[in-house]
Every structure is written in structure tokens, then in C-alpha cells.
């Protein structure tokens, strides 16, 4: 009988990774999305393309460059040095940084679309009603962009849970540190532990289905920026 306690570690790691990544991406992705939606700078689409790169880059290319950045000779190594380490590669923190990069377009794009769909007018109205730009952003733009935030959060979370190639390259397969679900399943298959693989994969299937279903139902109820 497979030892179920073993299975808990990848699940916990995956949930932690996806949650932290999603929160970080909402925090840094929202200003980026807002800027992309509203800026009239000529080089705006250059920034947009950079953000969207992970959509088209082969995961191993992304993984390679992330390894360089996170490794002992890159900025990651310098940061790790502050905490007594050598490199951010093959650490949970490194995984978070990598996940932020490769899931960014999945969070930024829906939020950007939502801000663009709002248009200029509601924010102009807010300004004529004495709202400062900061106030207008929080009291008008954010509530009206709610569907975009919902979609971005769910997509970012789901994509982080599902990523394999990049995670394997920069995280390795270290139990309790970087062995997330996708890597664990791969590992169990390689080591012919079909029981474990069945449980994890089946669980992932059910979980994903429930998430999609819930998102679609919630989208109907909460997705529209109305009352």
C-alpha cells in the first residue's frame, strides 16, 4: 500500500508555490497591466511583448536563463548570499521567482484586457467628481476590472500548478523543497511507483475539474462588474 504521508509533501509544496506566486503576480502584475492598458508610450508594446514572452518560449529556454539568473554567478546568487546560501537555484524561493516569470502573462493579460475594456470614460468621470488618480484607481478601475482579476488569479494559479519543464530545470527534484506535484508524478513514473502516480494524477484531475467548474459558475455570479 503506498504510504500516503509521502504524497502530502508535493501537494503542500504545490499549493504553497501556486498561492505565493499568484499573490505576488497580482501585486506586481496589476500596475503593469494598468500601465499597459492606459499608456500611450510608443514602446508600450515592447514591454507587452517582454511580459508575454513566456507564452512562446520553450520551457527549457526559459529554464536555462532562469538558472543563470538564479545561480551563484547571477543576481540570485547574490541574494542567496545575504541569507547564507550559494544560489537560489534548487530552492523553493527560486521556484517562486521562476514561477512569477513564467506565469506572468497569464495574470497580466486578463487584467490588462479588463482595464482596457473599462476604457477612459469611467476614470474621467471619477476625476470630474474630485477623485484623485489613486482614488479613481481603487474606487472605479479595480471594481470594474473584477472579472479580469478573477480570471488572472485562476489562470496564474492553475498554470503554476501545471508547469513542469521550467520547474524541473531550476528546482530539480528535492523532496520537501522543490518536488512539486508535476515533478513528483514524473518521478513516480520513472521509478515505476504507479500507485503513487495514480493517486497524485487522479487527484490533480479531480482538483482541476472542480476548479474550472467553480470558476465558470462563479464567473456567472461574480464575474460581471455590476451590483
Amino acid at each position: 500500500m503506498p504510504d500516503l504521508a509521502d504524497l502530502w509533501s508535493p501537494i503542500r509544496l504545490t499549493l504553497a508555490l501556486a498561492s505565493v506566486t499568484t499573490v505576488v503576480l497580482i501585486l506586481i502584475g496589476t500596475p503593469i497591466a494598468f500601465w499597459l492598458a492606459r499608456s500611450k508610450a510608443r514602446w508600450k508594446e515592447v514591454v507587452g511583448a517582454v511580459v508575454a514572452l513566456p507564452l512562446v518560449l520553450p520551457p527549457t529556454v526559459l529554464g536555462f536563463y532562469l538558472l543563470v539568473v538564479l545561480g551563484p554567478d547571477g543576481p540570485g546568487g547574490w541574494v542567496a548570499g545575504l541569507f547564507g546560501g550559494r544560489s537560489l537555484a534548487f530552492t523553493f524561493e527560486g521556484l517562486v521567482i521562476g514561477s512569477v516569470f513564467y506565469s506572468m502573462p497569464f495574470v497580466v493579460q486578463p487584467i490588462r484586457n479588463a482595464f482596457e475594456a473599462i476604457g477612459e470614460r469611467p476614470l474621467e468621470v471619477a476625476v470630474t467628481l474630485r477623485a484623485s488618480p489613486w482614488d479613481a484607481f481603487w474606487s472605479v478601475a479595480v471594481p470594474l476590472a473584477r472579472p479580469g482579476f478573477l480570471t488572472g488569479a485562476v489562470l496564474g494559479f492553475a498554470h503554476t500548478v501545471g508547469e513542469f519543464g521550467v520547474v524541473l530545470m531550476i528546482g530539480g527534484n528535492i523532496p520537501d523543497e522543490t518536488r512539486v506535484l508535476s515533478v513528483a508524478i514524473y518521478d513516480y513514473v520513472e521509478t515505476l511507483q504507479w500507485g503513487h502516480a495514480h493517486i497524485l494524477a487522479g487527484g490533480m484531475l479531480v482538483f482541476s475539474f472542480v476548479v474550472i467548474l467553480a470558476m465558470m459558475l462563479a464567473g456567472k455570479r461574480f464575474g460581471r462588474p455590476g451590483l
Partner: protein
Amino acid sequence: MADTATIDAAFAGTLGSFSLDVAFEAPMQGITALFGPSGCGKTTILRCIAGLNRMAGTLRFGAETWQDDRAGAFRKPHKRPVGYVFQEASLFPHLSVRGNLLYGARRDSRRQAENGLGFDEVVALLGIGPLLERAPQALSGGERQRVAVGRALLSRPRLLLMDEPLSALDHPTREEIFPYLEALHETLSIPILYVSHDIGEVARLADRIVVLARGRKVTDGPVTEVLERLDLQPATGRFEAGVVLTARVVSHDDAFRMTHLDHHGQTIVTPMAEAAVGSEIRLRIRARDVVLATQRPSGISVRNILKGTVALIVEERETAFAEVLVDVGGAGVRARITRAALADLALRPDMPVFVLVKSVAFDRRALAGLQPPPADGEE
């Protein structure tokens, strides 16, 4: 000593395919209309006054300077005490009507009732009481626009800017809203700048008019004077050219549903107007509805036969038409007739002439009462 009791605006810049260069003054009370055809820059000017667009220029509001390029001054739009009503109501979909109305009020707690209108008064003035808890999506176009006006008013502005507020509405809805706008005119002590391309709206609502065309000011002045001017044909449009007379209601004829009015000693009869005896109303008379005669006709259905003197004649060469300005009791009435008729009647300036206007020509749109309508729910 500079006159501080006006709004002074001057803006210059490019606007699409042509350049804009306009300077005008508006008084600190009443409705001043910015009038001109689509694309002439009137909306851009309004937005510059609100600070939503930025164009080179100066803007003074009474003693305050809101923009002065030479001094490097530009007051941010959210710091300008203006209310703005957009062409499409643009209510916030994520707030109820009440939430929309209070949005501006919540953010400006310093000036308490500076223009004298609190929440309940604004709601009553615009008749939006029954709508307060509804979502904006559940309102009709006219209701939304009234809420938009209320929302702008509740932010306690010192200047109200209205950008073609009726253009997006159909005719019956416009008629429904007019009395509310007229009531606003009577009740508010703050100035209103009203942008429109519809001379009918301007004639009914405005005290002063600034006429614009292709980014330039054509003329400005009191509405009655400017409308009399024949050289404004291209701006006012052939079919809608006309004048506005003010007349006092003398009596109502219930049997025939007519109203008798006095205009400088002459009687004008119109279909029944909703105005009390003794009140003054504005009559809009379109040039094409005016007939001229050198003899007083008899046996004719026209009810209004006014005596006047020809003041000015303008023939439109290469066309069939001419316009004649006739002085009727001190006010000008424009008549649009054919050059053939002009020649046939041998009209000359200073000739006495009879001005005939069908009572039917005064449709409901042409009769504007200066009394506010009763609020919804009143007996």
C-alpha cells in the same frame, strides 16, 4: 482693475485636421452655450476647461487661475470644482443610483452646500427619487441622464459643464428632460457651460451663446441678438435658422386650446402653452415659417399678423433664397423667402411690412416656459 466676475478661457492647439484657436468670456451665472457643428472643437474646449484635455492656453474662473501657461500653472482636473455631464450618462455600473449620486459628494466634504443644493433637493429637482436603489443598467436613457446631472450637482461644483447632454437621447426623451434643465436654469446660482450642435436646445436654454466653427470663434453675445444675425447661416443651418422672442402670457383660451401672448403691444397666439398668466415665455420662430406681406391679408388661416419694419435684406446669390430681418416691436424676426418674392414685393429697408406666422409653427419645442415644472408626485 480686472473684472473678476467672469470665466475667461483661451485655448490653442491642433484638433484633428485643423487647428483650434478660441478665446471667450462667460458670465458667472446663467447658461452660456458653446454652439457649432460637429467637429468644431466645442467638446475639446469643454474638456480643456475641466482639465481632462490639456491644450496651450489660459483659463481663469473669477479670481482663480486654473491654467496659465506663462506662469506654468495648471490646476489638476480633480482639484477643479466643476461638475461634468457627458453625452452618454456614463454612470458607474458597479454602484447603485444612490452610490453614483454620492460619489462626488463623499469626496468633497469641505464645501457644504455651497450652491445651496443638498441631496434631497437635487433628487426632487430631477425627479429621481423612485430610482435611488436601482442599478444604472435598469434605467432608461432619460433617467440615466438625469442621474448623471444629479451626480454632477452633488459634487458641489462652482461651474457646471454639460457636453451635449441630450444628443444621445431620442426626441420624446429629450422633451421629457427639457423641463428639468429649464428648472436647473432657474434654480442654480452657478454658471453652466452648455455644448450643443442643436440650435433649438440653445434657443430654449441659453442666455448667451458662443458660436464656433472649425476651431475658431465666429461670434458671441446674448442669444436673442446672435440668433437675429443673418450672417450666421452656415453655423446655424439652413432649416433651423430663426429667432427667439420673449412674450408675456395674457390669457388662455380653453375652448380652442390656444394661448394669447403680448409682445411689445402686439398679440401673438400659439397653441396652448404650459405657463401661468403673467409669466414670460420664449417663442422660437424659424425663418422658414415666416411669411411677409405688403398688404394686410384677410380671409386667411394665419392667426398672427404682426406689423414691423424691414431692417435688413440679404440675397443668397446663385440660389433661390433671400433672408429678410424685420423689426417687430424692437425685436428682430427673420423671414426666409425666395428672391423672386423679394423682387416681386419690391421690399426695401425701412419699408413697413406685415409678418405672418402660423400658430401651428409654434410646436411644443418652440415654446419654452420660464417656470420650473412641478416635481414628480406633487399635486
